[in-house]
């Protein structure tokens, strides 16, 4: 019997060794992977135990955590409601987070690598953990102006300081109140989230960085730059002035916005085509140059590159491998070209800043609870698509477009404004996408802006960029200039 007992003893020992191993695997080796599972509510609860850092604009919180009495220690609040919804994003129980709340979560929750020692210190001393606060580059006056100017249109406004890349305003409509998603009732959060998810105009999408539209005529900045710089053509280079351009290999034709020719005469210069925003000469120019100079210029401006501000920006695209018909369309921002409003603003910013794009960002400073600065803004060059000569030429053309061309609604008395409109087609019968991008003052640019009005601004196919988008941009530019 003793022999059998010994064997049973070994079996029992093996059973317990198995349990020692299984608990070790779960609690040590798999612990991090399990904590990262989206279904792990404990990770979320733990994040509510921390006094999550505030998001500040000009020193004032636009998102902050205040103590509560319920099972969560803190309640996230957004004092300005919908005004900053595109910037802060939401921070929910169970439905994740977005925008700054998501992209800077490590800092806000106090779990970033640079806060590790502080975190450890707080555990040992028994203090409540606290996250870092984030000061944004947003200018509250410009943000408010952009928010008001866009009104009830579906669309987006983004304003950048060209010399630094600081994002001064970021507005996306329709908006939503992040407070409604910050409640501590998971069912209520889920209901609100589902409603917003299904709402017309996708309020949860930050259209300034995550919505791709055909850039339309704003892309003529790229085409013109490519012609002047990559193809070495002079600004008075001419193309045949046609009223209708048949597309090679297709029964479709290209026409100018007005339906006729581009001004008078048998030929038209690049300059006139740009200022009057004519499609046919741009299409001809594109085909004449070929794909390479155009695509290279688009990429130099940021098309096809990833970017984060620190939210990830959707990549704007200029397609490759085009036939002549597609090339013709792509030269005036149609075909398969797509761009985010931020990308379009970067076109203006490059021209405004002497040809160099500064990396756009929202983050001015990240400050730990003990007021030590963890990260601070540094102006960084992203790329230099234009020489200062090309930039200067483009700037003059854009000023001319506002003064006497297709972008007249952006004129500001006493200030020289540079701009380019766009009225992009989305498909047979679909409402247009209306654009404006520009900067001011032209001789010493302080702000570059892009405005997009989607869904035709409610006017179907009868609105234009100059009619709807330019006045919005004008109010944003004025807000900066009047400071």
């Amino acid at each position, binding site marked *: *019997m*003793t*022999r*059998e*007992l*010994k*064997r*049973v*003893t070994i*079996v*029992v*020992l093996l*059973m*317990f060794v*198995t*349990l*020692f191993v*299984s*608990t*070790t*695997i*779960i*609690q*040590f080796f*798999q*612990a*991090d*992977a*399990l*904590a990262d*599972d989206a*279904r*792990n*509510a*404990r*990770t979320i*609860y*733990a994040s509510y135990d921390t006094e999550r850092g505030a998001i500040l604009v000009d020193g004032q919180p636009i998102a902050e955590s205040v103590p509560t009495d319920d099972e969560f220690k803190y309640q996230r609040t957004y004092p300005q409601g919908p005004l900053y919804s595109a910037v802060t994003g939401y921070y929910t129980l169970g439905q994740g987070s977005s925008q700054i709340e998501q992209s800077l979560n490590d800092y806000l929750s106090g779990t970033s690598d640079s806060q590790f020692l502080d975190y450890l210190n707080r555990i040992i001393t028994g203090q409540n953990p606290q996250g870092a606060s984030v000061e944004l580059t947003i200018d509250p006056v410009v943000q408010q102006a952009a928010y008001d100017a866009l009104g009830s249109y579906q669309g987006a406004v983004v304003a950048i300081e060209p010399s630094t890349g600081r994002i001064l305003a970021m507005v996306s409509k329709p908006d939503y109140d992040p407070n409604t998603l910050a409640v501590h009732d998971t069912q209520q959060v889920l209901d609100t989230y589902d409603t917003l998810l299904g709402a017309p105009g996708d309020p949860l999408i930050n259209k300034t960085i995550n919505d791709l539209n055909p850039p339309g005529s704003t892309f003529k900045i790229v085409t013109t730059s490519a012609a002047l710089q990559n193809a070495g053509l002079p600004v008075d280079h001419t193309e045949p002035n046609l009223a209708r351009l048949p597309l090679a290999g297709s029964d479709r034709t290209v026409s100018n916005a007005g339906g006729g020719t581009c001004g008078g005469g048998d030929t038209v210069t690049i300059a006139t085509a740009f200022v009057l925003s004519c499609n046919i000469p741009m299409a001809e120019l594109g085909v004449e140059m070929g794909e390479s100079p155009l695509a290279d210029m688009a990429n130099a401006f940021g098309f096809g590159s990833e970017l984060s501000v620190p939210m990830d920006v959707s990549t704007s695209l200029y397609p490759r491998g085009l036939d002549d018909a597609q090339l013709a369309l792509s030269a005036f921002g149609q075909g398969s070209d797509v761009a985010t409003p931020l990308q379009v603003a970067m076109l203006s910013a490059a021209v405004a800043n002497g040809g160099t794009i500064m990396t756009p960002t929202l983050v001015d400073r990240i400050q730990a609870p003990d007021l030590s600065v963890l990260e601070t803004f540094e102006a960084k060059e992203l790329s230099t698509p234009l020489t200062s000569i090309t930039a200067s030429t483009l700037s003059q053309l854009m000023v001319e477009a506002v003064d006497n061309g297709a972008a007249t609604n952006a004129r500001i008395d006493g200030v020289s404004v540079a701009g380019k409109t766009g009225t992009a087609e989305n498909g047979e019968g679909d409402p247009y996408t209306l654009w404006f991008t520009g900067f001011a003052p032209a001789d010493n640019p302080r702000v570059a802006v892009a405005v997009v009005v989607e869904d035709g601004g409610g006017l179907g196919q009868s609105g234009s960029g100059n009619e709807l988008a330019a006045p919005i941009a004008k109010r944003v530019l004025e807000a900066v200039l009047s400071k």
Partner: protein
Amino acid sequence: MTNGAVTNGGPTATTDAPTPTPGRGIRRIRVPQKLRNLELFLLLFVCAVNAFAVVLVQFGALGYADMTVFTLGAGLAVLVLGLHVALRFVATNADPFILPIAALLNGIGIAIIYRIDIAEKLTGWESTAVRQVVWSGLAIALALVVILVIRNHRVLQRYTYLAMLVAAILLLLPMLPVIGQEINGARVWIHFGGFSFQPGEVAKIALAVFFAGYLVSRRDSLSMVGTKFLGLRFPRARDLGPILVLWALSMAIIIFQRDLGTALLYFGLFVVMIYVATGRASWVVLGVGLFLAGAVIAGQVLVYVNDRFTNWLDAFNPAIYDAQGGSYQLVQGLFGLANGGLIGTGLGEGRPDITPLAQSDYVIASIGEELGLAGMFAILALYLLFISRGFRISFAGQDDFGRLLGVGLSFTVALQCFIVIGGVTRVIPLTGLTAPFMAAGGSSLVANWIIVALLLRLSDTVRNQPRLVI
């Protein structure tokens, strides 16, 4: 561990050895009071740990401490110390570790149950912890009765078939129409006068007594004859009766009571006891083969068994996670354990209440979350120590009935730990068994404290053998 104790003699063996006292010329056969004093010392330490655990829970979950520690901690302390005093009179040679380990596991269990009560805002008689203390009192009182009534475990051998009858009745009770009750899909409960009881928990003790008595009397016919096949001597067809009956019983439990864990527990208990009694590996081969075959067929035929297997194998699949009766609980338990990490969140600082049944079936995950891997290891070590004390009785025992009963009772605890903790940690499919001494539930407490009483009685008898030194 157990082997070492047998060959070398553990610390208690030294205490218990007939050490000649120089100068007096009297051989002291044993020094029983030393055993009891050691037990008292350990019990006082355990009570302090238990009280400390309750206080930590309060500081962690509430931020302050109040008088609850007296109702929860002191209640249990008085009971186990009472049992200790009784042992000083009626079982002076009983093993000094069994009672403190059981008391510690019970106390930590109450602390963690109380912690979940706080999270669920249960107070007064709604509080599971309060009811657990009351049940502990009842269970320890019953344990005392068992020790007082059964002065020699050999009397139990007389009631071999009565034990079988008792086990059968207990198992059938939940199937009765009025008092039988189905909870969470398993029909293993009886319900009367406002509270529920799981008679299957107590049935395992009756079964262990029956197996021990039956196997002692029939071991020769079960072990000596048979045909050799593949190097193993297989029993004659007519001797297959008992194992087939037990197999049928287990399958009936799986089919009618929908309780995989209990079936596995009973059958495993029987296989181990028949193996120890007969020394024939063929019984193990037969038993494991039969059970596996039965489980595989049940997995094919019975939806709930199939679900258990799917939940186990593919727990993180979103479809299975979200399904009714899916792997939600299993996965949440794993999240809890992961949240605990190496050192745990600290008592009262985690979120064990997210996992369903965090006080009963999932009490182990709650402990793993708040006490961490370190705490889990401690709990596992305590169980292992408890089981090893039981095995010591079997190794040192003089009578085969006592040895078999000792190994049977200890093995049920071991197997139950493995089934429940293995289920929670995804070693095996999850079944609804309770962690001995810790999980909320009266039946489990009563059964395990009766096991404590029987092991104490057995160990006392073993040490009372005049010539025996262990």
